[in-house]
């Protein structure tokens, strides 16, 4: 007797050929999608960071120093506060709008920000206006890479930066005592200097929230407050943009704010600094030791334009 066996799989369940072939594109997409999704979270490993010749050979501070001693007033004015108060800061989804005097204004997703240029590890000195300093291995690329993509027009003379601000996520910001959102600015030639960095990570990982996740500025020859955290807007402009600490106390904080041992802050000397982890103060260096930026300021009286 001949018993007809049903086919193992009905034809309706067979994968169409187009979809079957698409499998490969799907597979090749996985790493990017994976990194893209994972990169939005703090403390994701950033593999294959290129070494940078701009790095200092000085001893890095510990990860603990850099994550437990933060000036991030939106998350409290105490340096021990941001590590707790920023713990649940939501950085996903995230958009950075690059706009103003540019030929190609564009909104970048964080995923796109991560891919503007190959990520490098750069070990920079970081000097706070308060007289302490640290050495941090940042991860990112020169800000100029991003600016070149949007093509500044001939009118663009300055770059204005704006940090994220939301009282719901940052209730302690009520008591910051400074106007928010946090604003900063650079002259275009400063922003285009290779040392000026768009930073997405540190210590080989994405940034933790208290250090300015998911993307921040790092300008190592200027006092730390110039390096705005958690950027949402980068605007190219014609006139010198306002910066928060200058609005708050103009006699204490200028626009340029280059590290300068010869120009004292009205309330303390800038001649020396304490490197976290060291007992004795060490002398502060002009431009924080980054002499290669000196040519940006030829002919300027840095005592007046502090």
């Amino acid at each position, binding site marked *: 007797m001949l018993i007809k066996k049903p086919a193992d799989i009905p034809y309706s369940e067979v994968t169409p050929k187009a979809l079957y072939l698409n499998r490969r594109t799907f597979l090749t997409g996985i790493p990017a999608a994976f990194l893209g999704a994972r990169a939005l979270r703090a403390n994701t490993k950033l593999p294959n960071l290129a070494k940078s010749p701009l790095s200092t050979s000085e001893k890095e*501070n*510990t990860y*603990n*120093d850099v994550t*437990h*001693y933060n000036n991030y*007033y939106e998350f409290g*004015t105490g*340096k*021990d506060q941001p590590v707790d108060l920023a713990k649940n800061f939501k950085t996903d989804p995230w958009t950075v709008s690059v706009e103003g005097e540019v030929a190609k204004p564009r909104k970048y997703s964080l995923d796109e920000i991560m891919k503007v240029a190959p990520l490098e590890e750069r070990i920079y000195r970081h000097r706070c206006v*308060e007289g*302490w300093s640290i050495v941090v291995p940042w991860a990112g690329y020169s800000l100029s890479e991003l600016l070149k993509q949007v093509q500044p027009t001939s009118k663009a003379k300055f770059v204005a930066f704006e940090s994220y601000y939301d009282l719901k996520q940052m209730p302690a910001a009520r*008591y*910051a*005592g*400074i106007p928010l959102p946090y604003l900063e600015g650079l002259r275009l030639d400063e922003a285009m200097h290779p040392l000026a960095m768009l930073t997405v990570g540190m210590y080989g990982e994405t940034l933790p929230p208290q250090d300015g996740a998911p993307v921040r500025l790092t300008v190592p020859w200027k006092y730390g407050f110039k390096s705005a955290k958690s950027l949402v807007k980068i605007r190219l402009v014609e006139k010198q943009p306002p910066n928060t600490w200058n609005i*708050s*106390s103009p006699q204490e904080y200028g626009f340029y704010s280059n590290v300068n041992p010869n120009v*004292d802050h*009205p*309330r*303390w*000397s800038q*001649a*020396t600094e*304490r490197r*976290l*982890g060291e*007992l*004795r*103060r060490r002398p502060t260096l002009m431009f924080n030791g980054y002499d290669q930026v000196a040519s940006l300021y030829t002919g300027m009286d840095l005592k007046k334009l502090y």
Partner: protein
Amino acid sequence: MLRSRWTKAAVFLLCLVPAAWLGWRAWNGDLTPNPIEYITHFTGDWAIRLVVVTLAVTPLRKLLHLPDLIRFRRMLGLFAFFYASLHFATWFGLDKYFDLHEILADFVKRWFIFAGLAAFLSMLPLAVTSTKGWIRRMGGKRWQLLHRLIYFTAIAAVVHYYWLVKSDIRLPALYGSLVAILLAYRVGAWWSARRRAASAQGGKQAQMTAR
């Protein structure tokens, strides 16, 4: 209870708790990434707190009808001086590393250092003359007059704190308000005592004329 020797010992130990806490954290290497700054702020905080507490003794005695609180005033004042000395020594020794040149430059150029030093130095004569012997030697009236210097100490300490903070003035404002209230109480007390004296005088005069 306030008269007991044990209460005094308890207050003494209580005043030592912050110092012990600091010592414990130092022992465990748990003084934040910037230990010198932490010690400076910690000892400064306790100095100003104890100045405020010392200033509060007299008003509290009167308002709560607890005259025996006076037993703790000298001790509280001396502990304020103790923490202020630690605060000063931390700045002088640990922070500035006995660099007299830089210290002098700070002293003339930085108003908040000037105010802080003024507050600290104004406590010195009070600490020195805090003994019974000195009260006897000076006489109660003169001794009391000298010890009103703590009003200056408190104001200078608040100003020091206020000039020091960058933007978040909540704590200096808090201590400033407390000091203002405690000093206002004294002005009020002085004023009403004067009026009472004046009306008593007036009453006497009225009696005299009636006679």
